[in-house]
């Protein structure tokens, strides 16, 4: 009888695969990343190592002792007190309680404070409240405490914001107007995030986590990179983490460049150097999970992309490994077996500096 191993599909459902099937899925996943990113495939040794990790008998696995890395957190306190829309678990608690719970009960290496909407733009009217919360938390916390939010440039377009929606303009073939709208939105994104972080840094924040950069495409990344550059010039000591929204920067505008590099179509190993040039301390690369593929395929693909990003980066890389990215299945309660295997593979094969 052929031995089969319990793995997961990208949506979390359990599947049973033979060793041969696992190896062929790893080769296919790695090959997909190599083709798209024009980066090296995993080596034969790395493929064997990844298969070994996936076939380990225990439910939870872990890195070898001595290979542990710091774990940073996006979404922050909303994880506890937020609603299901933010994958929060709805525990009524103050943000101070949530921060201290992460530090003293969960063993978090860093933590972040964030607004319930988790976007920079809605923070503006309530920034004083955010500053007050940051001051109270910093008085009590020991681990690095960031202010985290999404650039979320979509909020600058109608009906939520002042600029005409480029999607509507493009549908009417008003391409130049759509590009103008994106450029204006990017300018406001830079201005708002810098203003918010000036206030938070004056209130003692260790730094900022730009979470889901480029969610609205290349102009979103353009605005964020400029915000990082401005903050770095103003505050040489500020901790700045720039995490991405997806594996490839969508070319909604198509012609925007940063430091002479066109942003549209960049893959993680091409994004990392730009984050460093702008002044980020840590880069958070993303690789999306395909729900129709196995965890062997998804994890091999993610490890191949992230390994290339780690090698191309001059700053530490903390890979995004939430629900639906980094080889993690796409569901709100990702199985522990899949999470711990992905975690181990990213550290031991991709060589990440953190998660």
């Amino acid at each position, binding site marked *: 009888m052929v031995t089969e191993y319990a793995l997961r599909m990208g949506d979390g459902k359990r599947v049973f695969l033979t060793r041969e099937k696992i190896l062929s899925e790893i080769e296919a996943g790695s090959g997909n990343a190599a083709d798209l990113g024009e980066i090296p495939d995993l080596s034969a040794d790395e493929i064997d190592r990844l298969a070994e990790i996936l076939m380990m008998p225990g439910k*939870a*696995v*872990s*890195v070898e*002792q*001595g*290979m*542990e*890395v*710091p*774990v*940073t*957190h996006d979404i922050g306190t909303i*994880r506890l007190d937020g609603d299901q829309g933010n994958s929060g678990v709805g525990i009524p608690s103050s943000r101070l309680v949530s921060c201290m719970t992460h*530090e*003293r009960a*969960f*063993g*978090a*290496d*860093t933590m972040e404070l964030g607004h319930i909407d988790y976007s920079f733009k809605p923070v503006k009217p309530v920034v004083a409240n955010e500053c007050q919360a940051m001051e109270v938390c*910093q*008085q*009590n*916390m*020991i*681990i*690095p*405490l960031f202010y985290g939010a999404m650039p979320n440039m979509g909020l600058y377009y109608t009906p939520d914001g002042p600029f005409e929606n480029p999607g509507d303009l493009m549908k009417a073939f008003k391409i130049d107007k759509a590009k103008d709208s994106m450029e204006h939105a990017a300018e406001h994104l830079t201005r708002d995030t810098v203003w918010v972080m000036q206030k938070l*840094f*004056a*209130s*003692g*924040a*260790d*730094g900022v986590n730009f979470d889901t950069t480029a969610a609205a495409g290349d102009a979103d990344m353009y605005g964020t990179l400029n915000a990082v550059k401005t903050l770095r010039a103003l505050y040489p*000591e*500020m*901790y700045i*983490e720039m995490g991405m929204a997806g594996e490839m920067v969508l070319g909604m505008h198509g012609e925007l460049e940063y430091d002479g590099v066109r942003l549209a179509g960049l893959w993680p190993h091409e994004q990392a150097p730009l984050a460093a040039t702008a002044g980020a*301390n*840590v880069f958070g690369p993303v690789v999306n999970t395909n729900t129709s593929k196995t965890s062997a395929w998804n994890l091999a693909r993610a490890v191949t992309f992230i390994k290339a990003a780690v090698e191309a980066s*001059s700053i*530490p890389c903390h890979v995004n*490994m*939430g*629900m639906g990215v980094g080889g*993690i299945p796409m569901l709100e*309660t*990702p199985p*522990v077996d899949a*999470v*711990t295997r992905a*975690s*181990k593979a*990213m*550290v031991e094969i991709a060589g990440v*500096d*953190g*998660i």
Partner: protein
Amino acid sequence: MPISHIMASGMTGIRAAGDLVARMEFSKNMRIGEAKEYVAKKLNVDTMDLSDEHIMRELREELDIGVITSVPGAAKGIAAKMNIEKLLDIKINSCETFRAQIA
């Protein structure tokens, strides 16, 4: 899920020395190996010890840089971070802000 990551790969924060290694990555752009070497040298321990709760618990208490349980009289919050500043030879923004307020 975050707890799964912490258990599988994390340095477990102030249970061990995860916060200290993270601070060196963020304050000096140090990659993981360099950050661990730096912190281990400052603490006079091996890099392997940085994730060892048994070693770090006693050491953190001795250095007064914050421990996970509420020890009466031990440095907490800003006070612990001021001791971390001296230990790692770095500046921490909240400590700078605090000093500016009492000056």
